């Protein structure tokens, strides 16, 4: 069972590889919109997370301009549901 730390690590990795965002600049409260991540970038990230973690996310809905913590929570909640 993957923990939150691993999810955050994978998220930061994907944001760095795909969109050039330095992991060190991100913390839990960081609003991804402030880094230029729009809703389509987020969908792309969630699809990559599915591949990276070997999971299927049932519900991809996120609040507008979510924080890193909110994205992590959405992923974790989805994983608990399908566990």
């Amino acid at each position: 069972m993957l923990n939150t730390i691993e999810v955050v690590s994978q998220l930061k990795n994907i944001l760095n590889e795909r969109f050039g965002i330095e992991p060190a600049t991100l913390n839990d409260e960081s609003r991804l919109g402030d880094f230029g991540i729009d809703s389509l970038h987020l969908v792309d990230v969630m699809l990559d997370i599915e591949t990276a973690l070997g999971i299927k996310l049932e519900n991809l809905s996120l609040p507008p301009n979510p924080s890193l913590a909110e994205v992590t929570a959405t992923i974790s909640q989805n994983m608990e549901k399908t566990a």
Partner: protein
Amino acid sequence: MPTNRDVVITGIGVISPIGVSVDEVTSSLISGRSGISLCEGPPLHKTFPAGVVRQNFADQFTKLELPYLDRCQQMAVIAARQAMTDAGLDSLAAYQQRAGVFYGTTRGAPTTELDAYQQILLHDKQALRPFTVMSIMHNAGAGQISIRHQVLGPVMTHGSACASSANAIGDAARAIRDGYLDVAIAGGAEAPLSAYMFALFEGTRALAATDPEDVSRSCKPFSKNRTGLVLGEGAAFVILESAENARKRGAACYAALTGYGIASDGHHIGQPRAEGQAAAIRATLADAGLQPSDIHYFNAHATATRGGDEVEVRAIRAAFGDAADSLPVSSTKSIHGHLLGGASALELIVTILGMTGSFFPATANVDEVDPGCALKNLVSKPKLGQPIERAMSFSCGFGGTNVGLVVSKYREMPAKRHAVTV
């Protein structure tokens, strides 16, 4: 609403096989330097002569921008920005709905599209990446330009095959002339140099054979030994505005856009008809209020296909009558290739540069003129020191849309000058 305002060209931006700036393009036109070289289109086995822009533009965009931008859109955005900078403009937000983008392309993003098909057909993907639809749609280039320059009026995309960007430029000019807009970014782009488009055109058997001695000479419009067209890539834009607006902000201009004519063949989806082309030329002259003898240079569509060039020469003879044999005519596709949706915008720019530089651009690679294409004043070498008051650029598309544009010297405003002087 309709008025009759003068429309002037205050900025030019160009990414092409013969140069990625106005100065480079001018130098190439004067020297006759060809931008045609050998190009691969994997997984096709053959190599093709093509007008290649040997530059990767991806490094001019962030990783956040790139997923939305096929090479076509990258070139469109860069060329449009170049034109805007040339005109001394950046954001058009202050114009509200009186600024527009008029864009022409035939395909949009064939390389990204081919990759999408592979994902579905070969990799069993049930959904594509979220950006794909927005990067391949025909209006992607227009949309991207409008976002970057805050254009809040009409943002339109024309698809009339090889006449697309002339159509776009003409409609933009009309909107300004008739008082609906004050300024417009108008032009086109195409990035066809990959397997999909090579295979499409190879299927028509209309692509040129590689010249056995010099690949750069593979495109031979009007020649007895012409073998077909050479595809090219690039983007070309002009900034059009009302003379009134240009004066108000102290801008200089290259020329006025004084004529726009459009007529279609109603004949065949892939074969041209001289009557439709002649009608378009006549409509252009009429719109400009000119007689045939008033045109000092004609930039032809002539793609170097066996059938097409001959049909166009018949149309020129029919429309220009007695003036046909003194009319200097050339097809510069001979050195830059056929940019499809971007072709007519690039060729209008070539025409403008010839007029402002007082030279006739040439049809390169004409060793012997085909008797069926004989016009007495075919320009086969760049000719300097030629005063040109008015010139016409002509384009004809698959499906039969034919468009003519006339540009004229405009002495009522300061003239834009560039570093390369003739």
